[in-house]
């Protein structure tokens, strides 16, 4: 009886958290500019065609990126954007 109640509550919380994540992602998508949306979709299509080892490498880089300190991430992001803008001008 008690176990069933606990399971019921846990399932409810799990669904709630899942829904919250999905809503957050949807919200994030809506706030992207058309260019950013285009980049996300392009990257997604590219990701699908990547070989397995490249996917693994990218996942590792993603994990590493998330572990980097906030200021370092900001600096790297800024540097990347500058380089991209520079490439765009060339």
């Amino acid at each position, binding site marked *: *009886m008690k176990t*069933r*109640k606990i399971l*019921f509550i846990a399932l409810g919380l799990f669904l709630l958290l899942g829904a919250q*994540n*999905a809503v*957050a*992602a*949807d919200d*994030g*998508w*809506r706030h*992207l500019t058309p260019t*950013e*949306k285009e*980049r*996300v*979709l392009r*990257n*997604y299509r*590219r*990701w699908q065609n990547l070989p397995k080892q490249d996917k693994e490498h*990218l996942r590792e*880089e*993603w994990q*590493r*990126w998330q572990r980097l300190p906030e200021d*370092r991430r900001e*600096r*790297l*992001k800024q*540097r*990347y954007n500058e380089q*991209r803008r520079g490439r765009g001008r060339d």
Partner: protein
Amino acid sequence: MKKSAPLETACRQYEEDLVLHYYGENSDAERRRVEEHLATCDCCRRFLEDLHGLLPQMADAKEMPQTFWDSYYRETVAKLAEQEERKYWWRSLFKPMRTWMVPAFGTAAVAVLIVGLVFGKGNLRLFVEPRPERIPQEILADEKQLEFFESMDMLEALGKLENQDDQTEALNSDSKHAALPGGVA
């Protein structure tokens, strides 16, 4: 309670037949054989008499006191209630809610919805406009996925960017040391 004397010992080979004889469950031939034996055997006769005295007592139903029946009734009612509760266990989730709470919560929910619609006009596109493009569910699975696909280009160049950043940091640090009085040029 009257203390009964132990049973008289009967002839071993007649013991079982004597019990059947007492209940009248043996065949005619058996009955005759047992009766013939009883005529000659005192032990078996006394055993049969003892059976006549003892077995009816064992068959008597024991009279239980009123307290036993009261307790029995209470236990049965409690078990039935428990069984009923197990059947409708979800009802207990709403038990703490009083009757007035349900319409109160309903009204509050409607109020929140109205306030949300009035003040969240900017976000009404979600309900009004259908999403023009089909976005793969994998992207929208969670916020991190979206972020991952957004920064995929940068992740590919992450190692290179880090090297450049380290070099810049080293240069900055060198120039700071050089600028300090007595620093190494």
